[in-house]
């Protein structure tokens, strides 16, 4: 049995990932998280008399705090195994990746541990996020002039 044939062979004995089920859970939970954020957005405007834009920033901060605290309490990763990608794709996932890395490397100290490793997972998002902001900004200037 050559390598190609072996890869075909093992497919028969490997359970197929439940793509539809996982996507549906992610869609529903992700949607619920979006609705919750929208509710917060309205409430912050009402309670603190903030303009929509500032209220949005505080909504993001709220989600980051919730995700980080749940990560520190060891709850977030359990939720992810049940709720699939619904919590990983939004800003909650970004906060989770940073907090979990900080927790992991605290035993190696503040500089060589947390400092050097905190963006281990989030670094990719930050780097390519910044690069795409530049590219799309440039495109925007070229196409619609600013």
């Amino acid at each position: 049995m050559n390598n190609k044939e072996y890869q075909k062979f093992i497919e028969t004995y490997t359970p197929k990932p439940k793509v539809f089920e996982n996507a549906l859970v992610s869609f529903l939970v992700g949607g619920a998280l979006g609705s919750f954020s929208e509710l917060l957005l309205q409430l912050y405007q009402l309670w603190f008399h903030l303009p929509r834009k500032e209220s949005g920033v505080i909504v993001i901060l709220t989600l980051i705090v919730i995700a980080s605290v749940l990560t520190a309490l060891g709850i977030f990763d359990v939720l992810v195994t049940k709720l699939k990608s619904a919590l990983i794709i939004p800003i909650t996932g970004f906060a989770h990746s940073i907090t979990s890395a900080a927790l992991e490397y605290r035993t190696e100290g503040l500089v060589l541990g947390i400092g050097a490793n905190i963006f281990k997972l989030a670094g990719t998002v930050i780097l390519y996020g910044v690069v795409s902001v530049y590219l799309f900004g440039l495109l925007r200037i070229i196409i619609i002039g600013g």
Partner: protein
Amino acid sequence: MTITYKNVYINNASTIAGIYEANGPLKEYFDKTYTKDLYFGETSWEHAEIKLLKDSIDLLLKKTKFKETDINLLISGDLQNQIASSDYMAREYNIPFLGIYNACATSSEGLIIASTFIDSKKVNNCIVSTVSHNTSAEKQYRNPVEYGTPKPETATFTVTGAASILLTNEKTNIRIESATIGKTIDKGTKDVNHMGAVMAPAAADTIYRHLTDMNRNPDYYDLILTGDLGKYGKNILINYMKEVYNLDISSNYDDCGTIIYDTDKQPVLAGGSGPACSALVNYSYILTKMHEKKLKKVLIVPTGALFSPTMYFQKESLPAIAHAVSLEVVEK
């Protein structure tokens, strides 16, 4: 390459396990379990892993009544970079030390080296140890422990535990009869969440060569036991052996990864993995059954994926290895 031994006996063994293993079906067979958390009173998972290993050696010395200075050789390996757990354990003992690495097949590599030393009369006795720790392994090979990602059903769960065994040239009621050194085999599998598929061909090759070299049928053994293929890998091995070697091992074959946990009830996906997986099952459950003469001839085949995260990121497929060791009850 199959080696036969005339004069290598198992004197005693010790097993220490963590909370997930203590909640599994083999609980009563372990010498000691830590059920509070995975730190065992230490400040980091790496220190906890070293503690497990030291515990298993201390307990073994206590059980055997051998003194530290009576031991001729200590062989140990683990999953940490630079096999750190074994190195830092070894500095605590006044025993000549060999550090080894064969991933989850480390225990069998150690048994083969020790048996060869003893049978060739270079040493009288030797301790072989191994350890793995769920969260320190996650940190070493995967993402931060608290980072949650949806995992496929084929992924395995690293066993937390340490196991040590004392081999001697003095006669006891279980002996190491022969061993087959595995070849490193890579069938092009690149999925780190499907280690069973990565390692099954290596196990199949070793089992086939062992049976051929020793001129035996699979039913010569009461049990053939692989290390950590998990429930899907186990099925792959059975069917792969039928298809490629025309050998049916289904009636007397099992896998330690599916024995150590209750895969239906515990959150371990396809089963246990890690060097301690096979070592814990073999040195507790299997040796007990052999002492009770319920099993008389057992072929243990710990399996290891020799993968490096760096090589994996460089798009390499995953090599695997398996060594077979034949254990026999000595008939008086």
